[in-house]
């Protein structure tokens, strides 16, 4: 392989961001996992672990604050999160925009238009505007790398945190990326500077005024930067666009149209918008989600076509943009016979199944849910959730509901279901609320010893860090006790033993005070740690059906296990995916299921 070839590599947008940060001399990175951003820190924590420090934080606010601290201490720092994570991290960000940085600071907001793996769709470009932080919008992997590096320069030049706005298709699409060398950045010697970093009202009032000056300088830069240069072709149509939307617009409008592709959209380069619009007859704005660029154009009195034809929600693609612009609809091959849905389900052997099946049989309960694999407990046939809002929300919404119901004289009881990682994220403060303010909901912490939904990241309960070091696990029962939960109100159960789960649920729900049930069994898909192997019997097993005894009542099918096939003459359990959790065996009234060694 020759030199030139060896300097190019196929990378996802996420890998490219990690590469860019590495090349920029990054020293400190922190994040909480969240699709579609997770692989950025995974890459930093594996491929670049010898060159820089990286960690999983318990939540995005902590990650943002840790990165702020590292910047103030004098090194280049980084944080990453999915769009909803920035809601959590917004508090420190808004003030960090006032103070500015010492070492350059870049953070990623990875938005998920179309909600491939999210509970909502939000356009976080609005956050850059609201918090007044410089924003860059890469359109592919190469730009993801370049803009990350540029971000560090701009962060230090303009004394501002820089938001790198990514979307699912930029994060998860792969393309060829040109690699560069890492530049080592020595730490900036520390100097105490109370007026810069202590945001008391007196200091913050001064900072607020200074921020306006910095914003003006940033806007001037935005009008001249090479990442905001117009591409003039024909004069009939001019397209203003940014990020992944540029790729779709370019395919629809072709070589004839002129383009203003904005790589930096906050501060908005207003003079550049005016200049571009003055040189074309008709202006189109192509952007996903909100009319963010369009509103800037309209504020300047520029007539343009945007959200009146381009959808405001969902993900765009070339087809959608073409149909919106030309009205043409393509003839496509269709069939009257339709494919059956293939929704995601709790895996075979998932330790949440035994718990949810048992919970689904309880009458007179409202179940508040949370964000994680266990949100799938809401799906048929379990249907064992009533609400899901946000990370950590199950316990506090459950507390509010339980108090409201109790005060209104209702007999309805409340069970709040949360995973281990989500509990560490933001469930702890909610549980303090429930205990301290004498609520009566039963909180169930489903401890599967890993952050599951995002693909198995370490968390404060696993005993390992992102960089692979051993560390001290949070002791969940001891934590519950320390925040005031009575010892007799703390139940620890094996979720695969349904009698045990039922007994704990019956007792806990009957009490008129806050209770907690901790289920302990590792995720069926995780790579077991030595502690997992010490604490749990994980020898490979499987369940088999005796065709002679099976009465085809389908009780086992109703556990929703994807290893169980009830479509033939008798039930068959897939030997490869079955882990021998025995939930099906426990619900079988005919004694037709047996657990055997695998």
């Amino acid at each position, binding site marked *: 392989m020759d030199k030139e070839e060896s300097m190019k590599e196929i990378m996802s947008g996420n890998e490219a961001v990690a590469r860019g940060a590495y090349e920029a001399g990054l020293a400190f990175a922190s994040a909480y996992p969240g699709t579609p951003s997770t692989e950025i820190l995974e890459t930093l924590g594996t491929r670049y672990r010898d060159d820089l420090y990286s960690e999983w934080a318990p939540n995005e606010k902590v990650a943002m604050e840790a990165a702020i601290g590292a910047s103030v201490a004098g090194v280049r720092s980084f944080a990453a999160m999915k769009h909803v994570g920035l809601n959590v991290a917004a508090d420190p960000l808004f003030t960090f925009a006032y103070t500015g940085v010492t070492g350059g600071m870049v953070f990623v907001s990875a938005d998920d238009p179309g909600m491939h793996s999210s509970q909502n769709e939000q356009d976080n470009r609005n956050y850059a505007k609201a918090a007044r932080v410089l924003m860059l919008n890469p359109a592919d992997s190469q730009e993801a790398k370049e803009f990350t590096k540029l971000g560090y320069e701009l962060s230090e030049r303009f004394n501002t945190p820089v938001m790198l706005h990514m979307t699912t298709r930029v994060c998860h*699409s792969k393309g*060829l990326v040109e690699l560069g060398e890492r530049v080592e950045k020595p730490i900036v010697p520390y100097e105490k500077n109370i007026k810069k970093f202590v945001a008391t009202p007196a200091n913050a009032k001064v900072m607020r005024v200074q921020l306006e000056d910095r914003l003006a300088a940033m806007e001037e830069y935005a009008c001249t930067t090479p990442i905001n240069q117009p591409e003039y072709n024909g004069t009939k149509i001019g397209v203003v666009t940014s990020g992944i939307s540029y790729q779709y617009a370019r395919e629809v409008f072709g070589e004839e149209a002129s383009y203003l592709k904005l790589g930096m959209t906050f501060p908005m380069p207003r003079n550049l918008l005016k200049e571009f619009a003055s040189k074309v007859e008709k202006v189109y704005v192509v952007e996903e989600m909100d009319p963010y660029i369009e509103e800037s154009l309209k504020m300047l009195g520029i007539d343009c076509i945007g959200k009146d034809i381009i959808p405001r929600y969902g993900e765009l693609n070339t087809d959608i943009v073409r149909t919106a612009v030309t009205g043409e609809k393509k*003839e496509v091959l269709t069939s009257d016979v339709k494919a059956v849905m*293939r929704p995601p389900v709790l895996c075979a052997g998932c330790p949440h199944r035994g718990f949810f099946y048992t919970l689904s049989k309880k009458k007179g309960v409202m179940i508040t849910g949370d964000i994680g694999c266990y949100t799938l407990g809401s799906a048929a046939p379990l249907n064992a959730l009533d609400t899901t809002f946000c990370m950590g929300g199950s316990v506090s919404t459950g507390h509010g509901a339980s108090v409201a119901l109790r005060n209104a004289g209702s007999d309805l009881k409340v069970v709040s279901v949360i995973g281990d990682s989500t509990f560490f994220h933001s469930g702890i403060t909610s549980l303090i609320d429930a205990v301290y303010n004498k609520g009566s909901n039963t909180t169930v912490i489903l401890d599967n010893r890993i952050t599951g939904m995002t693909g198995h990241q370490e968390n404060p309960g696993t005993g390992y860090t992102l960089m692979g070091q051993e560390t001290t696990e949070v002791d969940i029962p001891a934590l519950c006790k320390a925040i005031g939960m009575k010892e007799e109100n703390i139940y620890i159960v094996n979720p695969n033993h349904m009698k045990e789960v039922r007994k704990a649920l019956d007792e806990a729900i009957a009490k008129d005070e806050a209770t907690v049930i901790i289920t302990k069994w590792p995720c069926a*898909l995780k790579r077991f740690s030595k502690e997992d192997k010490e604490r749990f019997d994980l020898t490979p097993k499987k369940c088999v059906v005796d065709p002679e005894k099976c009465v085809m009542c389908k009780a086992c099918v109703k556990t929703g296990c*994807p290893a169980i096939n009830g479509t033939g003459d008798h039930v068959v359990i897939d030997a490869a995916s079955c882990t021998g959790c025995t939930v099906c065996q426990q619900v079988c009234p005919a004694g037709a299921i047996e657990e055997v060694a695998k």
Partner: protein
Amino acid sequence: MSEVKNILLVGVGGQGTILASKILTEGLVDAGYEVKMSEIHGMSQRGGNVSTQVRYGEKVYSPIVGVGEADVIVAFEKMEALRWLEYLKPDGKMVINDFEIPSAPILMGVAEYPEGILEILNEKADTLVFKAGEIAESLGTGKAMNIVLLGALVKAMKVEGVDWHKAIRNNVKEKFIDVNIKAFEAGYAL
């Protein structure tokens, strides 16, 4: 400018679509094409359907293949072929693994696996149907099913000048290289 070609690899989580896409992308890049590959992560390990989109040519903008645009679709599972039919160009080709994986509603008995999928697809489109798993088994490991399908896909793409063996060698463990190259060739020979 050479035309951009659109390829879709569709299947069910765990079928090896990701590795096949990786080899495909690397081979094309190595041959000098600009390639964009897009895959959606998140739910795939939990039994959901998975898809990878690969676009290649001299200059590629969007990483996504639109409806009616795919030159070749390779379906690792029969029902997934049906699901993605509208993405096929009317004169495109569909490579189909004759293999069924019932989804959750089917396993639970609230829906039935559609009948006559192959007949429908044969009637609508130019198809190549075979049992990739059986071919892989006959070569020594059912796990190479994805590479059999990759071989058939590459042939349908009519792309030349790519060192596919090299791309396979770069992406599978040493001890599996031979069987995977055999699997690729078996698929290509179909």
